[in-house]
């Protein structure tokens, strides 16, 4: 057993969240240099080119959609929701891991969150941007989307506050706003650092303006810490509420397969599951590209793998209970829906979903897998696929097989559906590429705190 010493609990405990030997200066330099002085590499350019092409495809797809209407998509009656809602739920779920890392792990005083919270929050913002796009363009007349907000209109009408769709408008817009505030507050001290280190005048002006004149005063830090802690406390119930409200879009309806009380908790768990998968999908190439292995260590990757395993098991429990309750209730529509999942025209999607979301992630029980970067990367992609399929199964199977056979239908996506979905992947990746170059991807101020704690422990 050559690797036996590595598995020794004492050694594992000591696997650091920050590689030893770092000082305030070295962490600051390493992170801020990526933004300030590092030249743009060929890898970044190539990646950005691909992402940007996909983004351009999105603009084409949306332009065509606005010109022709939602008929260019595969949606029909009875399947009015289709890809747009599948993608909406998928994206908003991905965003949840960012808030979980920045807020909940902060409240739980988990030090390992420090080096991943900044880009996880950025990921949240970009995912919410992609998510918000779908209901907007799915309305068919996106230029009238402001009807959803309560404003004193000349028609004298108001939104219907008993409707989950209006709850959704408030939940998602609040979530987007609070995530942006949280992200910006975290950035203020780092923007000041960039202002003070920037070699060029124009950089000093931009970062100086954004830093609002932050000077690290003890009085400011005092209020800053209060505000940050309160934001974390507010974002924690908020993130749980957002996917709960998203699940209400389904569970408040009486459609078989949707009308269950297990939906809110299992949607939230699924959101965190897919979100952590996406954090890994981003973190693994990021740390390799910018040499950040000292900051995003094996310990981070392994912890994230453990969170995925735990939330994956909650999701599996949700699937099981969905299945069990419909059988146990004996309700013929619910029983029929389960049969449709297992044997209907979309059964291959259901089996792939089980394979991706439940069976494959069991590999994470093995430490060898959790500590294998390549395996984790592949698994994160598998889980993201699985979570997308989950939403597809929920939306499409229920809508194609509701109460009356005369109302049954079939759904298949068109090239425009795929183009729009791939386009949002482009939007997300483009924003990430720009973020990695324009702002510090790791919180510098918090890394300095970590250095301070580490040196205290050594004293």
């Amino acid at each position, binding site marked *: 057993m050559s690797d036996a010493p590595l598995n020794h609990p004492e050694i594992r405990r000591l696997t650091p969240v920050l590689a030893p030997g770092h000082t305030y*200066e070295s962490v600051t330099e390493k992170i801020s240099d990526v933004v300030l002085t590092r030249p743009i590499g060929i890898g970044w350019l190539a990646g950005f080119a691909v992402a940007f092409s996909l983004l351009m495809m999105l603009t084409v797809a949306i332009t065509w959609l606005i010109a022709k209407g939602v008929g260019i998509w595969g949606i029909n009656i009875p399947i009015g929701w289709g890809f747009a809602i599948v993608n909406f739920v998928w994206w908003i779920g991905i965003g949840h891991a960012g808030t979980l890392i920045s807020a909940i792990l902060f409240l739980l005083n988990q030090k390992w969150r420090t080096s991943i919270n900044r880009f996880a929050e950025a990921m949240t913002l970009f995912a919410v941007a992609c998510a918000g796009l779908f209901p907007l363009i799915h309305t068919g007349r996106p230029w009238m989307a402001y009807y959803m907000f309560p404003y004193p209109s000349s028609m004298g009408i108001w939104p*219907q*506050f008993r409707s989950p769709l209006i709850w959704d408008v408030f939940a998602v817009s609040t979530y987007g706003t609070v995530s942006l505030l949280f992200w910006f507050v975290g950035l203020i001290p780092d923007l000041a650092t960039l202002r003070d280190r920037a070699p060029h005048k124009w950089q000093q002006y931009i970062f100086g303006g954004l830093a609002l004149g932050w000077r690290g005063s*003890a009085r400011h830090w005092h209020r800053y810490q209060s505000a940050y802690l309160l*934001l974390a406390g507010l974002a924690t119930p908020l993130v749980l509420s957002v996917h709960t409200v998203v699940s209400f879009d389904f569970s408040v309806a009486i459609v078989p397969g949707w009308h269950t009380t297990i939906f809110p908790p299992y949607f939230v768990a699924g959101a965190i599951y897919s979100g952590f998968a996406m954090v890994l999908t981003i973190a693994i190439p990021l740390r390799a590209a910018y040499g950040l292995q000292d900051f995003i260590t094996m310990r981070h990757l392994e912890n994230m793998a453990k969170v995925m395993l735990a939330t994956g098991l909650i999701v599996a429990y949700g699937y099981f209970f969905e299945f069990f309750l419909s059988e146990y209730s004996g309700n013929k529509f619910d029983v029929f829906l389960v049969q449709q999942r297992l044997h209907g025209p979309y059964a291959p999607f259901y089996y792939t979903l089980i394979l991706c979301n439940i069976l494959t992630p069991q590999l994470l029980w093995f430490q060898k897998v959790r500590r294998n970067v390549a395996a984790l990367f592949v698994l994160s992609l598998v889980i993201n696929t699985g979570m997308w399929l989950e939403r597809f199964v929920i939306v499409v199977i229920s809508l194609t097989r509701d109460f009356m056979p005369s109302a049954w239908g079939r759904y298949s996506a068109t090239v425009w559906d795929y183009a729009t979905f791939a386009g949002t992947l482009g939007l997300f990746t483009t924003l990430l590429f720009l973020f990695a170059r324009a702002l510090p991807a790791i919180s510098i101020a918090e890394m300095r705190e970590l250095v301070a704690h580490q040196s205290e422990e050594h004293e």
Partner: protein
Amino acid sequence: MEQRSQLYGVLGEFESAHQLLHAAEQVRDAGYTHMDAYAPYPVEGLSEALGLGRNKVPLLTLCGGLAGGLGGFGFEYWVNVISYPMNIAGRPLNSWPAFIPVTFELTVLGAALCAVFGMIALNGLPRPHHPVFNVHRFLRASTDLFFICIEATDPKFNLPETVRFLQSLNAQHVTEVQDEE
């Protein structure tokens, strides 16, 4: 152009958070009140060392949350009961459980906006320029150096004495800070 400059205070530089904490306590115990410390990250115990009391951010946040929640519910009530009543499946006009999600979201939104903008406003930001920025070494306050500034407005402030006092606390560089107008 003629530049008038006025003494803002005296700035002492320290190499570690430990030294800064120790010095802040000494400055407070010496009876200075108009002073501030500057650190590249929030140093634990610094607010206590400087004798800062509780701040108003939590109170503002509470007010924002209450305003958001009460305002949100009140607005929903007014819309669905008074301004635009609609009978949906025979349910009461004031179907309050259905109003809770939006009430909750607006509570969080109000509280979060007040926490962030309250913090920024109480800190007197945005303020692009501040006299301490005139000291060249202060650039490193956002990387790895710690500072204490005793301001000229302090009743106990006396230039030579305050400089000597900061030096006695093992401050590496003690500099006068000029406020250029």
